[in-house]
C-alpha cells in the first residue's frame, strides 16, 4: 500500500494541473517500511521528453540525482515516481511499463480538462512484463 501525505499530494495534483495539456512528472520521497510505503515529500520535475509531451514524459537524471541527495540528507528514500495522463484515464501503459523500474511505486494521475480526475498506483514486476496495481491512499 502507498499512502501519500496531504502536502505532497497537493503538490502532485497542482503539478499535473499546471502542466496540462502536457504530461507532468516528478519524484516521491518517503519511507518504504511494511506494511505501507509513505510518501512525505513530492518533487515536481521538468518533463525532459524531447517531442510532443501530451502523451510522453521523461525524467531528467540530474533531477533524480538531486532528489536522491535530498532523500539521503533527510533520512528518506526515493520510493517512486508520478506522472499525469492528460485527458486519459490513470492506467499503466505499455510505454510506462517498458520505461519503468521494478520495485518503485508509480502514481498515474488522470487530469481531465485541466482538473484532477482520479489516480492509481502500480508496481512493475521484476522482468517488467507486467505491473500490479498498488493500493493508493491520498488526501
Amino acid at each position, binding site marked *: 500500500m502507498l499512502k501519500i501525505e496531504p502536502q505532497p499530494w497537493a503538490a502532485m495534483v497542482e503539478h499535473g494541473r499546471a502542466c496540462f495539456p502536457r*504530461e507532468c*512528472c516528478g519524484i516521491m520521497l518517503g519511507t*518504504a517500511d511494511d506494511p505501507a510505503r509513505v510518501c512525505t515529500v513530492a518533487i515536481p520535475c521538468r518533463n525532459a*521528453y524531447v517531442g510532443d509531451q501530451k*502523451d*510522453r*514524459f*521523461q*525524467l531528467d*537524471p*540530474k533531477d*533524480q*540525482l538531486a532528489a*536522491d541527495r535530498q532523500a*539521503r540528507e533527510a533520512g528518506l*528514500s*526515493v*520510493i517512486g*515516481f508520478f*506522472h499525469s*495522463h*492528460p485527458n*486519459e484515464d490513470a*492506467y499503466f*501503459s505499455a*510505454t*510506462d*511499463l*517498458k*520505461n*519503468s*523500474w*521494478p*520495485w*518503485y511505486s*508509480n502514481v498515474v494521475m488522470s487530469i481531465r480538462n485541466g482538473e484532477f480526475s482520479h489516480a492509481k498506483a502500480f508496481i512493475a514486476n521484476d522482468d517488467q512484463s507486467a505491473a500490479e496495481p498498488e493500493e493508493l491512499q491520498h488526501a
Partner: protein
Amino acid sequence: MPKILIPTPLRQYVDRKDSVEVAGATIGEVLGALTTQYPDLRKNLYSDEGKLRSFVNVYVNDEDIRYLSKDKTEVKAADTISIVPSIAGGGR
C-alpha cells in the same frame, strides 16, 4: 575507495545498504568489483552481452559517464558514483 550510492530497488541485493565502497581505478573496475561482491546485482546492471543496460545511468559525482569515457572513466578515492534509473513513459 570510491563510494557507490545504491538506488532503493537494488538495496535488497547489497545487504540493504544504501552505499557500498569498493576499490577500482575506472568505472568498469569499480562496477566489476561491486557485482563480484554482490553477484545478484549483475543482471540488474548488465545485459547478457555484458553491456551496461540502457536504462541504467551511471554518474561520477555530477557527470554522466556516457559523456566522459564510459566504463573507462577514471575514478578517484573521493569520488561518489551514482546509479540512476532511467525513468520515462506516457499515455501513448
